[in-house]
């Protein structure tokens, strides 16, 4: 034994050397850190950014945002339209060495459906999950759900045994006032395993030597150092000084500066998110205007006039430094249901708008308060300031009330605003998501963000039918019909789709993914 020891040492050293010779560290910064590493505690893109390196869902959207197999190798709807079947990837091991099986899938789906999970909203249609054999599971939905896989792309799989051993069978419950073990510890199947986690400071991940995807993916990066840097100026300075390889949240004003620096590049892409103004068209009288006894926004001509008075190109060049795509619908181009016709931008025409205002009986306009977030979307408050100017030209005197999103969003949900700005991302990549939350009237899990107060029974029924319609042709026709109605009614004034800018060293030329997610395993 003693004889072997030096030899083993030398071999280990040689292996270390071989590894370090090709080791590549990827220093990645964002504006905010993931708040927790518990995969089911928060439905937030920021958290998913880190989690996607460590944990894996059954399917995910790759760098081109196509749905590709992850822990499931294939999936399909069975002869019973209410049942989906997933074949699982064989020989997959968690970072602690446990095998990944059907039991883990059942456990994870149930955990994500649990009362304390923030992802339960994505799984409302799932009634139960059953095991067929070790590598096959079936999910039964309440009525047919043709879009089930679209909802599973951020639903990470955990190890049942590990979760039970560490008492994290449920996602964090704030009632307990205790830290949940999964907040800072992980055990995924992903390409990278967590080495250290210091919240708000640094999260280090190292390549998982037993990853199932070895040979299938480039996996060039051997170590990820993830650092949140809140101050935008500092974040860019650190990229310029070479202390970082990749900055995911680039402020628009720095794009030119960074792309002109040698050795650095900025990749641009369209984000799957629409920015728009909402209008209370349904109430008989509204609170935030200066017109007594009636609601000017209830008149379609007024809504159309407001839509025409806004110069989206000017917002793009002046406010957004070119980083936006003006839009005519709330459905971004990446989403199923989008058409060029829908996206036709209302012509900017002050005279026509004024004429419409006169026809509607408001030749001198009226006064109204616009509620706007100031810390959520790119230049959100500045966009609102521009809107104030444009609407002033047709006599609509807008009083701007900008505040943090934490104050803004509850008021939209509680119908306390009449004219507001909001952004809406579409994680399912299907128009149903937009229609269900923003156009369907408030009812159960639908219409949660719809403060237009408009209730159209016919359209509500059509939107509802989209979740269960398995005839895709028929479904597409319904989507087109509802979106057409939405555009004609002008309950919302679409402004633009946000673009994303990622700054990086030339060496890492990563394509911008429209969900703003980076998968380090694809970097070559």
């Amino acid at each position, binding site marked *: 034994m003693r004889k072997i020891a030096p030899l083993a040492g030398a071999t280990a050293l040689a292996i270390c050397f071989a590894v370090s010779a090709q080791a590549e560290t990827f220093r990645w910064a964002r504006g905010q850190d993931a708040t927790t590493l518990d995969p089911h505690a928060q439905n937030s893109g920021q958290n998913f950014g880190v989690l996607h390196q460590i944990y894996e869902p059954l399917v995910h959207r790759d760098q081109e945002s196509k749905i590709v197999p992850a822990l499931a190798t294939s999936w399909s709807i069975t002869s019973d339209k209410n049942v989906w079947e997933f074949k699982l990837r064989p020989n997959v091991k968690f970072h602690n060495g446990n095998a990944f099986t059907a039991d883990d899938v059942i456990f994870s789906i149930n955990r994500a459906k649990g009362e304390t999970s923030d992802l339960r909203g994505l799984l409302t249609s799932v009634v139960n999950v059953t095991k067929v054999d070790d590598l096959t599971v079936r999910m039964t939905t309440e009525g047919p759900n043709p879009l089930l896989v679209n909802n599973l792309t951020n639903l990470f799989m955990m190890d049942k045994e590990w979760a039970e051993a560490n008492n994290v069978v449920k996602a964090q419950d704030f009632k307990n006032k205790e*830290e949940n073990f999964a907040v800072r510890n992980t055990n995924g199947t992903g390409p990278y395993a967590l080495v250290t986690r210091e919240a708000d400071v640094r999260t280090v991940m190292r390549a998982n030597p037993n990853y199932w995807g070895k040979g299938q993916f480039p996996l060039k990066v051997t170590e990820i150092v993830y650092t949140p840097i809140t101050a935008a100026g500092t974040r860019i300075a650190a990229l310029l000084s070479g202390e970082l390889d990749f900055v995911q949240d680039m402020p628009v004003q720095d794009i030119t500066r960074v792309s002109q620096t040698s050795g650095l590049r900025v990749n641009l892409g369209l984000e799957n998110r629409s920015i728009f103004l909402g209008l209370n068209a349904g109430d008989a009288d509204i609170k935030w205007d200066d017109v007594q006894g009636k609601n000017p926004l209830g008149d379609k001509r007024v809504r159309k006039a407001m839509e025409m008075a806004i110069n989206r190109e000017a917002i793009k060049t002046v406010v957004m430094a070119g980083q936006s795509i003006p839009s005519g619908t709330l459905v971004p181009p990446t989403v199923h249901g989008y058409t060029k016709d829908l996206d036709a931008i209302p012509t900017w025409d002050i005279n026509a708008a004024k004429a419409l205002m006169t026809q509607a009986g408001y030749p001198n306009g009226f006064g109204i308060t616009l509620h706007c977030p100031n810390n959520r979307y790119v230049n959100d408050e500045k966009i609102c300031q521009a809107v104030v100017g444009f609407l002033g030209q047709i006599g609509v005197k807008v009083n701007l009330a900008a505040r943090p999103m934490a104050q803004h969003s509850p008021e939209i949900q509680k119908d306390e605003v009449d004219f507001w700005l909001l952004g809406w991302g579409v994680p399912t990549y299907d128009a149903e998501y937009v229609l269900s939350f923003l156009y369907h009237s408030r009812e159960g899990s639908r219409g949660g963000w719809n403060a237009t107060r408009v209730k159209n029974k016919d359209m509500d029924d059509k939107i509802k039918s989209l979740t269960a319609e398995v005839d895709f042709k028929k479904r597409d026709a319904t989507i087109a019909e509802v979106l057409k109605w939405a555009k004609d009614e002008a309950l919302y004034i679409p402004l633009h789709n946000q673009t994303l800018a990622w700054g990086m060293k030339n060496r890492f030329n990563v394509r911008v993914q429209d969900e703003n997610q980076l998968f380090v395993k694809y970097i070559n």
Partner: protein
Amino acid sequence: MIAFLIRRIAQAVLVMLVVGFVAFSMFRFVGDPVSIMVGQEATAADRAAMAERLGIDRPFPVQFARFVGNALNGDFGISYRVGRPVMDLIQERLPATLELALCAAMFALVFGIGAGVYTALHRDGALSHAAMTLSLIGVSLPTFLIGIGLIFLFSVELNWLPSFGRGQVVDVGGWKSGFLTQSGLRSLVLPTITLGLFQMTLIMRLVRSEMLEVLRTDYIKFARARGLHDRAIHYGHALKNTLIPVITLMGIRLGSLVAFAIITETVFQWPGVGFLFVASVQAVDVPMMASYLVLVAAFFVVVNLVVDLAYYRVDPRLRTDHATARS
């Protein structure tokens, strides 16, 4: 003495309660923490359930009473943002802030006194004029601008020093220190200057004017008449008497160095308690914000208490004044 102490402590408790109350009621206007904690798909029922789990569906007086009750037992609750106990987070972050504040205080003292003495002794020197002009900049420029300026010069253009973070830290019995590694020390330079510059210029101006004052006094004239060396007069007699107000000032300013490191910490992504506070405000993390403010208030109250007690012991006039006032 005992009566004085009891009165002081009673006042301190009252101050803490008022701060706690103000902090707690203020945060009700910051926004709804639930809206930050749940995703956009959450239904009204989901949000109500979360509010119930957090206990924020209760009336305000009940919430405040519970906060005070728990705080007395050393339980400051759990952070909404990161789901960890507030006290653990503060303990983890405090070393970073204290090390930075200590360095900034040392920097301010050494350079402030040095420059103050120099400008007092060479009143018309070119260097003195330059220092006085620069000190105006130090007093008038906002901290974040100084920080960004330093980053631009020393990190981006010259590439000498890191632009963010604490570098490598070493865990010394639970205290994570940046003093023991090269990258840790290098990371300290720019934040130290940023945080200490204002205090430095303040001390410099104070030392200068005090020194000019002292140099005019009779005992300095007598010292000169005795034929003492300039060096002995300046540093042995004048500077010693100048330092008393400086030390008093620094004692008080140390509290504000810790409390107001927020901006410096944000600019340099310095993982201290101030940075933690800013992140908490964005997420409407009420337990974290309230605890931080109470902690800072406690820090100030303790510093003031110690200063008062020290005065009481040192300065006999204070005691007699009280005695006469009482009788």
